């Protein structure tokens, strides 16, 4: 039986299936009979179309269904030309980032049951980045920011031996899957569009702190974060932490430690005095 979501409810009646011979038809008929439907309101548009157009698609709701399932159902049955980027469907590749119900989410990790399915669920591309088509955005700005970060510079004066507790902090930062939901939600990048100052965004404070907290690293990234990275523009309102699908405590474990290290290095006169007296760096 062809399951065309757009026409499913009016076109398929329970009796259609019961008339069929195969058991499969009967099962499918029961599913259709009891199926609940959800309306996906998807924002579509061509490259750089800022506002796009909202289009409604009906999708049969199945238990445990995630937003990506629903979007792929639309793509398969109602809108073959719908552009959507996805790969692993396991919250590991960071490709299927979008805004669902107005909040940045990985579509593969967001169940439809989280929403009020009696109303249309809004699905739109990441609003902070320019659209390529439909739900696909150009996030290449992030890769350019990434190149500005001083790479790992291993110490040469010490043996490569350390304890797990010494790399815990660094490893938390390595959980990042580069979905850029935190970059999308960060209000500094999202809304301050005119005359944008230099700003790296949460994902790259995570990367920088991940390197800076590594026991074998020897580079200093604090001045970079402060001047070119614009970490002072972050006002620790924690939206990045709220949306992180990898569960990284971005604000508490990356941004605030980085801010504190910058205060240590350049602001705190007591620490400066302490360093002078003890001769430490």
């Amino acid at each position: 039986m062809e399951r065309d979501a757009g026409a499913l409810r009016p076109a398929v009646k329970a009796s259609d299936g019961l008339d069929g011979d195969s058991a499969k038809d009967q099962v499918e008929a029961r599913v259709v009979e009891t199926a609940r439907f959800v309306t996906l309101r998807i924002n579509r548009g061509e490259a750089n179309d800022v506002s796009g157009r909202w289009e409604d698609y009906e999708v049969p709701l199945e238990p445990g269904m995630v937003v990506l399932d629903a979007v792929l159902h639309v793509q398969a049955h109602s809108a073959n030309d719908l552009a959507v980027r996805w790969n692993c469907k396991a919250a590991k590749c960071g490709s299927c980032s979008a805004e669902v119900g107005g909040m940045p989410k990985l579509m593969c990790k967001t169940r439809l049951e989280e929403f009020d399915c009696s109303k249309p669920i809004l699905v739109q591309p990441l609003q902070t980045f320019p659209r390529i088509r439909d739900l696909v955005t150009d996030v290449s700005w992030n890769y350019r920011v990434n190149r500005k970060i001083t790479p790992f510079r291993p110490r040469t004066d010490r043996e490569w031996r350390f304890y797990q507790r010494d790399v815990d902090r660094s490893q938390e930062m390595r959980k990042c899957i580069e979905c850029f939901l935190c970059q999308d939600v960060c209000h500094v990048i999202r809304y301050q569009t005119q005359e944008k100052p230099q700003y790296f965004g949460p994902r790259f404070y995570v990367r920088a702190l991940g390197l800076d907290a590594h026991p074998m690293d020897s580079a200093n990234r604090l001045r970079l974060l402060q001047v070119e990275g614009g970490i002072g523009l972050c006002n620790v309102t924690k939206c990045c932490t709220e949306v992180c699908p990898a569960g990284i405590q971005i604000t508490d474990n990356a941004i605030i430690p980085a801010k504190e290290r910058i205060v240590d290095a350049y602001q705190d006169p007591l620490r400066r005095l302490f360093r002078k007296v003890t001769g430490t760096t």
Partner: protein
Amino acid sequence: MDKTLTARVSARGLGATERQDRWWVAPAAGALALAVFIVYATWAAFVGTDYEFGPYLSPFYSPYLRPAWFPLSASLIVLWVPLGFRLSCYYYRKVYYRSYFLSPPACDVSEPTRTYTGETAFPLKYLPIMHRWFLYLSILVLLWLWVDALRAFDFGGRFGIGLGTVVMLANVVLLSAFTFGCHALRNAVGGNLRCFSCARGGSLRYGAWRGVTHLTMSHQTWAWLSLYSVGLTDLYIRLCAQGLIHDARLIL
């Protein structure tokens, strides 16, 4: 910033969003909860009476300093310390940036169109360094509050426990959990190290950092509980002093 990051949402004016949930509940609750405390605390600090009862002393009026030359309410001599500590706290900054400055009011909700400088301009630029100094002073005040809490067991030379003793003790425990979960303290005890094992006293510092981290991760909870416990402790002692309620003696 890069031209290719011409964000698709330019500033759209306050409150524009596609969010479908009740996003305004959290910032509104934050604004209200802070406002209620600020109004009560201001009144309680300036009123200058009914702040002690038996062995109990209101946290707003501790340490018990009464210099003759000070013309205003005695609470104002010390109250700027916890006030400054909380104003510069990373968690409270989040609350008032969201609830009062609307910057942003909630995640993915548009903020008012204006020039945004974050924490790069005076005075916000100096919040992190001020927070350290307020932390040092707050630890001193906290020590005093512990002394007050222990004194609340002393009913005219006899050991006793009243409901007020329990209230004061709970208050100082909550305040300690808040103070010792401070992000600045977390950095100072070990967070500033690249390698715990390589540092002098590394194990000790790692242990301290772990302990502080444990509290830091629930800083929000301790921030609200301790804020309200201070207010309620003052209110309890005030009502006792005014004779409006009777302090139940549990052990005497």
